[in-house]
C-alpha cells in the first residue's frame, strides 16, 4: 500500500507542477513505483513538463466517468522501466466534473499499485483543491520567498491542518535568488520557516535550467549536474525517510542567508 502526497500552494505559478514532476521522477530514479496525478482540470500541464503530452489518449475525467479503466488512461514514462506513470487531467471539462469522493476512490485504487501517488493540485482553495486533497495522506506546500506566496501558503496550511487524514504538511521553498535576499527584496528562509512553523523539506534555487528543461519535456532532475536537480533528489530522499542534511549547495546558500541576516540586524 503506497502513500499519496498532494503538492499544493494556494497561489498559482510558484512551482507545484515543476515540483510534482521532479520529485516524482526523483523517486522513480530511487527505484520507487510512482504515479503522478494531474488534478488541474481544464489547465493541465504536468504532461507537458513530463514530455508525455503526445501519448495521452484518456484522462482523469474519462476514468471517473467510467469511459475507461485506470490502466488504460495511465501514460507510461518510457525513460523508466515500468516505474513512472502519469494520469493526465482533462483539458476540456472543468473542475466540477470530478467530486472529492470520486478522487478519494481513484487515489485509493492507485495506492494499491504504486509506492507513491503524487497529486498536482490546482491553485486556489475551491473545488479543485478539495478534489486534490481528498485522497491524500501527506502534503507538500510549495512557496516562493514572496510575501503574497507565503501568505497563501499559510492559508493552505491552516486548511490542511483541518484534514484529519493528512499528516502535518511539509514545506518546499522554491525559486530562491541570492541577490534579491541580499537587497532585502525577498524574505529569507529562516524568516519563512519561523513564520509558517512547519518542517522544511527542501529549498530550490531559482534556475533558468529548470524552465528550459520543462520546456523540453525533460524534468531537470534527469540532469544530475544541475543545482536544482540535486535539490529535488534530496527532497525525494527525505520523503523516503533518509535524514539528508542541507546539501553543500543548499548549505552554502543558507550560510549566505544567515550571514546577510546578521549584517542586517546589526544596524
Amino acid at each position, binding site marked *: 500500500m503506497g502513500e499519496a502526497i498532494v503538492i499544493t500552494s494556494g497561489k498559482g505559478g510558484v512551482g507545484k507542477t515543476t515540483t510534482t514532476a521532479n520529485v516524482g521522477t526523483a523517486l522513480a530514479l530511487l527505484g520507487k513505483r510512482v504515479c503522478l496525478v494531474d488534478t488541474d482540470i481544464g489547465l493541465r500541464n504536468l504532461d507537458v513538463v513530463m514530455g508525455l503530452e503526445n501519448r495521452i489518449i484518456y484522462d482523469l475525467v474519462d476514468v471517473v466517468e467510467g469511459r475507461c479503466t485506470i490502466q488504460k488512461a495511465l501514460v507510461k514514462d518510457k525513460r523508466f522501466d515500468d516505474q513512472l506513470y502519469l494520469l493526465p487531467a482533462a483539458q476540456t471539462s472543468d473542475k466540477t466534473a470530478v467530486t472529492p469522493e470520486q478522487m478519494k476512490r481513484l487515489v485509493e485504487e492507485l495506492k494499491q499499485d504504486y509506492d507513491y501517488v503524487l497529486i498536482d493540485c490546482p491553485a486556489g482553495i475551491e473545488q479543485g483543491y478539495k478534489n486534490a486533497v481528498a485522497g491524500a495522506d501527506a502534503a507538500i506546500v510549495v512557496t516562493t520567498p514572496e510575501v503574497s506566496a507565503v*501568505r*497563501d501558503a*499559510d*492559508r493552505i*496550511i*491552516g*486548511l490542511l*491542518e483541518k484534514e484529519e487524514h493528512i499528516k502535518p504538511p511539509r514545506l518546499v521553498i522554491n525559486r530562491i535568488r541570492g541577490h534579491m535576499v541580499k537587497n532585502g527584496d525577498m524574505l529569507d528562509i529562516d524568516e519563512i520557516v519561523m*513564520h*509558517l*512553523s512547519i518542517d522544511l523539506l527542501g529549498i530550490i534555487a531559482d534556475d533558468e535550467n529548470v524552465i528550459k528543461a520543462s520546456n523540453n519535456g525533460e524534468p531537470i532532475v534527469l540532469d544530475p549536474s544541475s543545482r536544482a536537480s540535486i535539490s529535488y533528489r534530496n527532497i525525494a530522499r527525505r520523503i523516503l525517510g533518509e535524514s539528508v542534511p542541507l546539501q553543500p549547495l543548499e548549505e552554502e546558500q543558507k550560510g549566505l542567508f544567515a550571514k546577510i541576516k546578521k549584517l542586517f540586524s546589526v544596524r
Partner: protein
Amino acid sequence: MNRQKQSYVTIKGTKDGLTLHLDDTCSYDDLIAELEEKLTVNEPKESDGPLVSVHLKVGNRYLTPKQEEELRALIRGKNNLVVQSIDSNVITKEEALQWKRKTEIVSVSKIVRSGQVLHVQGDLLLIGDVNPGGTVIAGGNIFILGALRGIAHAGYYGNKDAVIAASIMKPMQLRISDVMSRAPDYKTDERNEMECAYIDDDNQIVVDRLQLLTHLRPNLSR
C-alpha cells in the same frame, strides 16, 4: 382573614426604599396572593406621591422571566411603588455556563493562520502566533505568548477596559470594544519586549510596555 398564619412576605423600610423579603419555600401562588394582600393594606391613598423603589429578595427561589414580569406588574399596580431590583440566589445552568464562559481564561495552543478566526467568550491565552490575515476575538482580554501579526479584537461585547498583550506586537489591526487602530504603513522595528494595548483617556488605542497594566488595569489580578 388568616392574618395569624406564618407570613411569606416581610416588608422593611430602608434609606433607599422598601426591601421585600419573599419566602422561598411556599408556592408561588401563595406568595403572590399574600403580596397582593399586604401591599393593598399598606397602599397610600394618593397616587401622586414620590416613587418608592422596591428591592425584592427572593432567596433560593428561581423566577422565570414571566414570573418576574408578573411581580413587577403587581407591584407597579400599587400607588407609587416600582421594582428596582430582583435578587435571587439561584440562576439556571444555562446562565451559569454563560457566566463561566464570559469570565474564564481559555487557553489555546495553535497558530492562527491566514483566513482563520479564533473566537472565545472570555479571556484568551494563546500559546502560539497569530499570522498575518489571521484573527483572534475575545469577549475579555487577549494574551498572546507568541507573535501577533494579524488582527486582535478584545472586549468584543463592549468592554473598553479589555487589553491585548503579545510577546511580539506587530499587528495588522488592533480593536478594543468599538475602537480600532491599524498598523503604521511604514515598517517598524521589532522590539524585544512584551507589549500591551489598551484604550487610553482620549478613547484611543495605545501600545506600550506590559508593566504599565499593573497600574492601569488592577482588575487583571483575580
